[in-house]
């Protein structure tokens, strides 16, 4: 048993030395950091592409100099595809579970590690291998299908669909393995006294997400394999020329990808629950309701995929049903919203940077969610489908929701992860730029969409010019914000003052161990005697 650890360093970072010790580690905290570095790198790549896309859209192509950054529509389509695929499969989906979840789930439960540490490491390698495959295509045979790989275009276009799709498949493996690990850890490795109803809400969120990952990802896996087979062997399942059905592809794809949007957002909701209760110094309002509404969202999310296909030629009855069921997602989501607001009410709120991100989340996610309901309304969607309105909607939920929560959670747990404090003013500055920049970028897109500007086009009529200019300028503000954030993080890690064990006076278990935690998480196994948020 724990024999060697006594002779090693006093925390997980200096426990062993050298790159090799990191690449072979089975410590969930180190794996979390490895995910962090990889995801940040992919975010950077995807971000540069986003800036290029926005730059291209700064002016219509008829305008000399600007407006022709990307040579032509083909290049635009390729950059758009990589931007989408990278951001979805390599940043937002793995983001919170793989970084913060890996790092904190065992700490939250009072466990020494996740149930299967080696599989945890394997999932990181799967992630990297899948990402490598996907990025490889960029260097010899670019793909231009959009991140949804719709047939029959994806089987006709002479690009690297097969490789890309295999990359996504392997990353899916990684996602399944992480989910599996989390479920078993929650079931089997809780410390004495840690009942399911004493688990922090972040853990509940990760648990619901893990169930989604397990149930939805296999369907994407087979869809991608069939797509690859279609491309290589022309099997005919999705190809109308061979009697197949391209709409079936959409059904399969969205059967995963709608739940996937909740794989992206439920962990974010978990993070926000932690932040709100900590920084308003109040017991969270409606713990059970928040916990179970995660499961509720997860359940409903399997029955609404058809709202992406209102104009695909599916039957009218199906459209009406999907429209109705989609509205139901609003119920558990609203439960969460109201509980957060009720927690804030009469709380003694402190506006530390993590809290700013949490409040930013509430604001942006509310807009994203409400526009989601608008899109779920069948007749409205017929009008808005494939316009910038949809683009704005999903950026509000994915970026405004998930990314905000990821940043907030990251600042919140930063002292625990690195044992240092970051510069609070820099972090706040970063928030201000990201928040304002975000709204400047994406709010005009709602209007553009309502005016009829289609998505995925690399040029537009002059009527759309002003709003596009505003939107592009917004993207520069976001960039500035992230640069401030990066600086705050790097400076914090290098020169930050030493963090105490529990700088925010939080009540959950991870704050009961030293910062950064030792290799085995807790010097003595904690025994839990109360709920996670005993503030008053």
């Amino acid at each position: 048993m724990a024999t060697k650890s006594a002779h090693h360093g006093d925390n997980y970072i200096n426990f062993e030395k050298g790159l090799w010790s990191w690449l072979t580690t089975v410590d969930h905290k180190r794996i979390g950091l490895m995910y962090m570095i990889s995801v940040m790198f992919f975010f950077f790549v995807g971000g540069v592409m986003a800036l290029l896309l926005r730059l291209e859209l700064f002016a219509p192509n008829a305008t000399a100099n600007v407006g022709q950054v990307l040579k032509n529509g083909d290049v635009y389509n390729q950059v758009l595809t990589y931007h989408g695929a990278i951001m979805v499969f390599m940043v937002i989906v793995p983001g919170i579970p793989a970084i913060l979840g890996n790092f904190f789930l065992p700490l939250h439960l009072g466990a020494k590690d996740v149930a299967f540490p080696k599989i945890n490491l394997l999932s990181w390698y799967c992630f990297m291998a899948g990402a490598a495959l996907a990025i490889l295509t960029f260097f010899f045979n670019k793909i231009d299908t959009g991140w949804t790989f719709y047939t029959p275009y994806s089987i006709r276009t002479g690009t690297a669909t097969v490789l890309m799709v295999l990359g996504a498949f392997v990353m899916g493996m990684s996602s399944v393995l992480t989910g599996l690990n989390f479920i078993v850890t929650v079931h089997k490795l809780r410390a004495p006294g840690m009942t399911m109803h004493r688990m922090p809400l972040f853990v509940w969120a990760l648990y619901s997400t893990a169930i989604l990952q397990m149930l939805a990802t296999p369907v994407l896996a087979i869809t991608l394999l069939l797509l690859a087979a279609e491309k290589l062997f022309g099997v005919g399942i999705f190809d109308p020329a061979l009697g197949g059905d391209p709409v079936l592809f959409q059904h399969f794809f969205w059967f995963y990808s709608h739940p996937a949007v909740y794989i992206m957002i439920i962990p974010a909701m978990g993070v926000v629950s932690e932040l709100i209760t900590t920084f308003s110094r109040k017991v969270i309002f409606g713990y059970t309701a928040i916990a179970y509404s995660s499961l509720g969202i997860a359940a409903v999310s399997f029955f609404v995929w058809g709202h992406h296909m209102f104009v695909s030629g599916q039957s009218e009855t199906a459209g009406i049903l999907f429209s109705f069921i989609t509205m139901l997602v609003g119920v558990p989501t609203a439960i969460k919203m109201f509980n957060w607001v009720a927690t804030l009410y009469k709380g003694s709120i402190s506006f530390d940077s993590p809290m700013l991100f949490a409040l930013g989340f509430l604001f942006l996610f509310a807009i994203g969610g409400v526009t989601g309901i608008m899109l779920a309304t069948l007749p409205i969607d017929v009008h808005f489908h494939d316009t910038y309105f949809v683009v704005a909607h999903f950026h509000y939920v994915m970026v405004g929701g998930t990314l905000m929560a990821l940043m907030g959670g990251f600042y919140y747990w930063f002292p625990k992860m690195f044992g240092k404090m970051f510069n609070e003013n820099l972090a706040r500055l970063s928030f201000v730029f990201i928040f304002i920049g975000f709204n400047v970028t994406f709010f005009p897109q709602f209007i553009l969409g309502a005016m009829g500007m289609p998505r995925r086009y690399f040029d537009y009529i002059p009527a759309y010019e002003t709003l596009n200019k505003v939107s592009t300028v917004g993207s520069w503000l976001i960039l500035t914000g992230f640069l401030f954030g990066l600086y705050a993080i790097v400076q914090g890690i290098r020169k930050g003052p030493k963090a105490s064990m529990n700088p925010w006076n939080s009540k959950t278990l991870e704050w009961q161990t030293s910062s950064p935690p030792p290799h085995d998480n807790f010097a003595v196994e904690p025994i839990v005697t109360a709920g996670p948020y005993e503030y008053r």
Partner: protein
Amino acid sequence: MSTDSTTHGGVRSAHVSHHFKTAEQEYDSGKQGIWLFMVTEILMFGAILVGYAIFHNIYPEMFAEGAKTLDWRMGFVNTLVLIFSSFTMAISISYVQRNEQKKAAIALATTILCGAIFMCIKYFEYSHKFHLGLYPGRFLDVAKVGAEHANLGMYFGFYYCMTGLHGLHVLIGMGLIAWLLIRTIRGDFHSQYWIPVEGVGIFWHIVDLIWIFLFPLLYLVG
């Protein structure tokens, strides 16, 4: 499974990984993990079965035409081979639990052999089909085959995808069992520790079970 870690009958005691408290906890976790993974396997095959069901419904005659070209005797022999291999897999676990490593090794080797027989028969089936021009989808040689239905290739699209994916799982399973075999001969498994054997066993049974669905759907229905 016993939770004490003393030596039983001269065999090594249970090894408990450092993040578990008891061997029982480790065993339960491992088992739950494997079953969850199996759920994903079943869902993956489930989706392709849904696709099959949909198109079978749209083109019943075409699927019947395709099914006629398959030799149900080969499929049937393969079904028997796999069921037998599931049996040998299962007894290997009980031998390990009773510290009869030698018998366990023989049972495992037999399981691998069955897998190999299965794949050989598949190989003959495939090569025979290729010989007749029965390729999937767009590669189907409609003239040579004399197909009645223009899209007959889709049937073979399903046939090759479903049996191909299943065959891949058989190969993976054989690899895993070979790994078990080596470890069994090395003496890693005994009455206090057999999780990997049971885990791979569950995988093998599921692969088996999936074939039991594929066989009637492809060879018999229609």
